[in-house]
């Protein structure tokens, strides 16, 4: 499509000529980022997520390029069972029945003697992947269904809305578990399953906006100029309906991470020995008393990540709300 180059973000180099007294564009990615940076809470959210994402990227590099080599060197055997270890060591500076915490394992070791910090490090990769992928599936599916449904209305709207309401009607955990039982218990299907359950959320949100945007004169003008429906939907309707979806997507990433962690806890997500936070929590519940830190650290990791996405979502909401004028 020849028009793809014309995104709202491709203008920075060209705005110089407009001179002083320029009114700020209240649309586009640049505007959004600028608004978010003004908001302290949202900034904290961005930094948190930024940090976690960097960690996840590093973990991925280590996994794919070095085959866990770097982490194995730093943290002794985070993935595979080490051969001779004292099990369930406490964090550094603490002591339990298995022995003294050492600097070699700053957060201690798990029930198989694997380094907890190392496993958290790898777990980040899974958490972030799951969060983004599941949300992307829900976002794309929901936006397409909602935009088409809202733009055309009539029987198309009815059919698509009843279809997504069917998804809504089933408790999501039951749906995801049923889905994974049918297709396979692994992380990919966990992501797809969670993504599908979030389709109705995005669908409703964007449909409600599209219904009002489609009445705008510029849509009518585009139709009168002979623009195809497909281009009207993608270039005119969706970009003008997208702000609340962006906020919801940010929040949904946090929710997806939480759900997949929950699934892993129930044994439906990442399968051992893949390090994932939910699965670490699941493993740790038998060792709550002798080694409480084993369950506390993955819990904190999940907490920080989810809160990070939530406050970014809140910040985005404030930034994109036209009624809040700064």
């Amino acid at each position: 499509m020849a028009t793809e180059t014309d995104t709202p973000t491709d203008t920075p180099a060209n705005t110089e000529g407009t001179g002083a007294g320029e009114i700020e564009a209240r649309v586009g990615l640049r505007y959004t980022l600028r608004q978010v940076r003004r908001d302290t809470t949202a900034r904290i959210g961005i930094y948190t997520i930024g940090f976690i994402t960097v960690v996840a990227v590093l973990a991925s590099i280590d996994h794919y390029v070095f085959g866990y080599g770097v982490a194995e060197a730093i943290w002794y055997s985070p993935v595979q069972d080490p051969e001779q270890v004292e099990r369930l060591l406490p964090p550094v500076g603490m002591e339990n029945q298995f022995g003294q915490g050492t600097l070699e394992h700053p957060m201690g070791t798990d029930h198989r003697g694997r380094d907890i910090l190392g496993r958290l490090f790898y777990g980040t990769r899974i958490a972030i992947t799951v969060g983004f992928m599941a949300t992307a599936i829900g976002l794309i599916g929901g936006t397409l269904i909602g935009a088409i449904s809202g733009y055309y209305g009539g029987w198309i709207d009815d059919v698509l809305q009843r279809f997504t309401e069917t998804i809504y009607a089933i408790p999501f955990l039951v749906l995801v578990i049923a889905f994974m039982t049918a297709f396979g218990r692994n992380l990919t299907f966990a992501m797809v399953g969670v993504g599908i359950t979030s389709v109705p959320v995005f669908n409703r949100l964007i449909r409600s906006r599209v219904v009002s945007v489609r009445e705008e004169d510029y849509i009518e003008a585009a139709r009168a100029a002979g623009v195809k429906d497909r281009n009207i939907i993608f270039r005119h309707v969706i970009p003008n309906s997208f702000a609340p979806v962006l906020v919801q997507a940010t929040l949904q990433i946090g929710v997806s991470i939480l759900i997949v962690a929950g699934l892993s806890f129930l044994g439906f997500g990442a399968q051992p020995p893949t390090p994932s936070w939910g699965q670490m929590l699941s493993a740790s519940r038998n060792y709550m008393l002798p080694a409480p830190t084993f369950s506390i650290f993955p819990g904190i990791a999940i907490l920080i990540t989810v809160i990070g996405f939530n406050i970014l979502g809140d910040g985005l909401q404030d930034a994109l709300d036209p009624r809040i004028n700064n």
Partner: protein
Amino acid sequence: MSEPLLSVRDLKTQFFTEDGTVRAVDGISFDVHEGEIVGLVGESGAGKSVATSSILRLVDSPGEIVGGEIEFKGETIFGLETGDDGELRPRDEMLTEQEMREQIRGREIAIIFQDPMESLNPVFTVGGQLREFIEINRDLDSDEAKKEAIDMLREVGIPAPESRYDEYPHQFSGGMRQRVLIAMALACQPDLIIADEPTTALDVTVEGEILEMVTDLQERYDTSFVWVTHDMSVVAEICDRVNVMYLGEIIEQAEVNDLFYDTKHPYTTALLDSMPRPDRTVDELRPIEGVMPEAIDPPAGCRFHSRCPEARKVCREVHPEPRDLSEESEAIHAAACVKHDAFDVGYDESQPIDTQAGGGFSAGLTETGGDAE
């Protein structure tokens, strides 16, 4: 006269609502010739905008074109025929939806909307939108289209078009945006531009500039216009011929000078009287009494009789179709009022009716009557 560019015959567009069928456009006929600016005048709700969207077949559900014919340059935009089963069906030569989109809309017939503030997409640059329209309708590649877009912006009098090309709609004033929309309409070099009250949202000085620019560009490109407005002064300024609409019907059709100096229909007279004029000093303007009746249930007989100062009993009974009242050698001047001898339905003998009590519309009376905008 040569073949008309656009010919509308007995066009009927109706809206099927829960309260009943709204006959928004009820059998209008008019022609637009090459290089002509044709006015479509009337109060709010007269069906002007529905008529224009019908020409582009852009009437949305629950609205539907139910009858009549629209021909443009020999192509059938809309036409029905009676099928073998006795049902009405679209004629074979009628353009398909895809042909409408690819050949007519934007390319041959462009439209300028009323509100320049709402007619540009706020998330894209002005230039980007203009370029998109040119690309779609003129088969140019991206760079050529951009060049063309900048040329068009310059053409419609936007200063420094190269830098304004990359600005967003909110950075433009109302008048500038309307210029952009006109550039958009002209850029695809259509044969006909439908201007749907394009200056209503602008203040009078800007309106003047825009009108001047349009007449100027019209002469240069020889584009025909259908100019929809409720403002008689705009009509006087730019139109060649005028169609006056009332409640979905065209009630008077004339060249602009004939319409102003030899008004044939009481409604047109009332419209002109309700407008301040520098050449006449009056104590009080005379608004048209009452409001326009609902198009869902139009009055029987002449539709204007409930508000007409010259209404007589016969007006309630006889529904006049527009008839050419001009002398042989003159241009067509049609009006739909039975007071003219050509109708010969006994107007002169009929009793006048008291319009103040008529129709029960006085509940809606305001200081300005129904003409307020």
